[in-house]
């Protein structure tokens, strides 16, 4: 297990290297003069263009620029945002926490709703419970999160006045966004859990467990669910990315700060240092999440061995 973990970490190195090259080249692959593009909304003089060029070190050779970029990144220095003048690292840390809060609470909602509904549906296939969970899944998959978010605001904020519609801050502000994000994601988990559970429940070891006289809850949770979760965990890993992407929309609808909105604004404003910083961070997060998912398989199913 230890060796496997180590090997996975070593494998992550070339991936991160590739990502850093791509991110670095982004600025240079965009057609046109990046400096001119960054200042396209202003009247500028040649001196101002040259000043910004030298401040961004764009007048140096490519390898030298890349070395500078990597060296800075390793020290947590990702340069300065063109638009806000603040360090990119500061922009990211300020916006990372709200997104992590939202994504993890959203994932929790998705897991509870999705796995719960999936189990219920699998226990009584083709019953009304199963049918409602199918409808729920269909709606969840097809309903765009901005629409669901507006419905949430309409119902819980405007009419029932239970939760505020906007803002970061305490848990109260997080309820509606997390529900919105979680509900849309729970749908696919519910479907997957259902089919996976149905398959496992047909296995002989379930019959054995039942005939041993185990309580039904123990049969379901310890024997069936744990085995049924392997594909679900894979999806969780993939969904983490979807959550980050979905967070953009949810963050915008609910007026919350976050990485999603930060990168969208950075792209619209051609704030290249900020875009580079965020893409680097998000790519590294993906690498890390995939690693965690791989390691989780081993916990769920000891038959998967790492040697």
């Amino acid at each position: 297990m230890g060796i496997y973990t180590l090997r996975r970490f070593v494998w992550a190195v070339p991936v991160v290297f590739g990502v850093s090259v791509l991110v670095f080249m982004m600025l240079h692959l965009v057609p046109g003069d990046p400096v001119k593009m960054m200042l396209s909304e202003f009247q500028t003089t040649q001196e101002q263009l040259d000043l910004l060029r030298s401040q961004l070190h764009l007048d140096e050779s490519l390898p030298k620029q890349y070395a500078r970029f990597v060296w800075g990144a390793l020290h947590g220095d990702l340069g300065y945002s063109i638009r806000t003048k603040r360090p990119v690292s500061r922009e990211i840390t300020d916006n990372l926490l709200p997104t992590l809060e939202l994504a993890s609470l959203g994932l929790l909602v998705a897991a509870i709703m999705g796995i719960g509904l999936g189990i219920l549906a699998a226990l009584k296939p083709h019953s009304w419970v199963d049918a409602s969970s199918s409808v729920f899944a269909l709606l969840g998959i097809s309903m765009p999160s901005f629409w669901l978010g507006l419905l949430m605001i309409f119902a819980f904020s405007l009419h029932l006045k239970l939760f505020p519609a906007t803002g970061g801050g305490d848990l109260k502000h997080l309820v509606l966004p997390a529900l919105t994000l979680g509900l849309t994601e729970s749908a696919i988990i519910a479907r997957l859990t259902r089919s996976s559970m149905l398959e496992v429940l047909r296995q002989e070891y379930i019959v054995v467990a039942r005939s041993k006289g185990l309580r039904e809850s123990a049969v379901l949770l310890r024997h069936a669910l744990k085995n049924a979760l392997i594909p679900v965990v894979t999806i969780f890993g993939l969904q983490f990315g979807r959550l980050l992407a979905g967070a953009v929309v949810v963050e915008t609808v609910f007026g919350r700060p976050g990485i999603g909105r930060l990168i969208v604004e950075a792209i619209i404003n051609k704030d290249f240092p900020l875009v580079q910083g965020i893409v680097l961070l998000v790519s590294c997060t993906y690498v890390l999440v995939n690693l965690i998912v791989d390691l989780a398989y081993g916990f769920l199913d000891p038959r998967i061995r790492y040697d």
Partner: protein
Amino acid sequence: MRKRVFTVLSMLVLVSLVLGACGPAATPTPAPAQPTTAPQPTTAPQPTTPPPTQPPAAPKRGGTLTIGINQNPPTLDPHASPSAITFYILSSTGESLLYLTPDRQLKPWLAESWEVSADAKVFTFRLRKDVTFQDGTPFNAQAVKWNFDRITSPDFHAGAAAGLVVGYDHTEVVDEYTVRIHFRNGYVPFLTNAASPVLSMISPVATEQQGAKVNETPVTTGPYRLTEFVANDHATMERWDGYNRQPPWADHVGPGYVDKIIWKVIPETGTRVATVESGECQVIADVPYSDLPRLQASKDITIQNAAWVGSPLQWLLNVTKPPTDDVRVRKALNFAINRQALADTIYRGTGRPPVGIVTAALLDVPLLSSYYPYDPDKARQLLAEAGWNRTGADGFLVNDQGKRLEIQINSIDYGTGPREIDQWVQAQLQAIGIAVTLKAQARPPWYEDNYACATNGPIMLYRFGDPDSLQALFHSKNVGGFANWSCVKDPELDRLIEQARVETDAQKRTQLYVELSKRVLENAYIVPLVDELSVWALRSEVTGLKFNGFTYPVAADVYFVR
């Protein structure tokens, strides 16, 4: 199995009924625009002062005012920000040397009086002696010098401020309360600029100490003090009880009424409207026309408008690319647009037909309607004169060589497809036989095409407080830059722009801009489309929102009436 399908279906129907029931309120469907119908004369929306719904009572102190705005300010440093949204916020806390009223009068503010030299190169300001910054630093000539030197320092990336001190040479400290600001060339617009919140004075001492924090909580001299800024979330300002003067907009001496003003960033329009209906915000900016009728009907909400200064929303016609290189075609486009219908069907109370090449709020001289009334027949006749005299098989106009009359609009796309207004213009022109295509694209390539004069021009607007900014749109040196996207090199326009810039007599200066407007309209370098209004919704328990001469809100005198 059949039973199961039926269960699923019936549940779907049930759910869709529930959703459908609450649907319309959350997403109003825009009524289709009807570009060809003749306009009904409607009562033009007037710039409103807050209607006296309550009997005048002594303003109440206290409370927290929450204002919903649609964008995140990149920085709150007045000198660094390129973005109008920063000045929505700063207009309630920052103070400038002068003040510009909505009817374009300059008033004393931090300066008691001012003089302009005959060549418009030297501006002398006599400062008030009773002003301190919120950190206790005295406001004096040295502080003014420090502010202007900061903006123009090569190490400092000035935002919009850089465009307001063009040709700055140096500031001379005459005595403790007198400064002389010297420019290399005559620069009359500096007086208006000195009243802009962009040139708010900030504390030299606090700014040197706070480093990058100046982007969050700059220290000013105004009635409210910025205390917190969380990007993409909110900015908070608290009443500064050390304020002991009467600002030019106020009816009383001393600081504002409410304890705290929170500016909340809510980019999603539907959400922003919901927050003023639920009371989470008491004021919101940028009310969309689609929600306007509902909010107007609500007894809890008051709507307040202010007409934007600057250029109207306009189509800059590229004079270097066929067929808009032909003045007859450009004139035809102007005759073919029904501006009243545009204001009525697309803007519905949030815009008015333009008067000329700048908005009525900036220069109220009606020119456009005499040059280009809505006259599709005249448009067709001009097109025929230009050679587009036959109708092709597909219904569009062709010339003798069989070439179709095609025009391409550079249309900015924020990710939701071409804008409704661009599509409206397209439909309006197709009705008289012009094949209009929209090159809908994201912001960076949109700019690239404008710089390269690659399309028949963009539909855009440009907001400014002094008509001198027309130089960006029409001076020949800005072809290939920001923002002469008509790509017009007209020595007469250059001459008028340069002359108006040094003309110290206000009436003569206005006359020069009228001449400039006529020259632009005669040659149909642009198609003015609509003057936009800044539309705000206030809950009826608050009153006192004002606007300055730059159409920015001043919330420092808002109070709760109950």
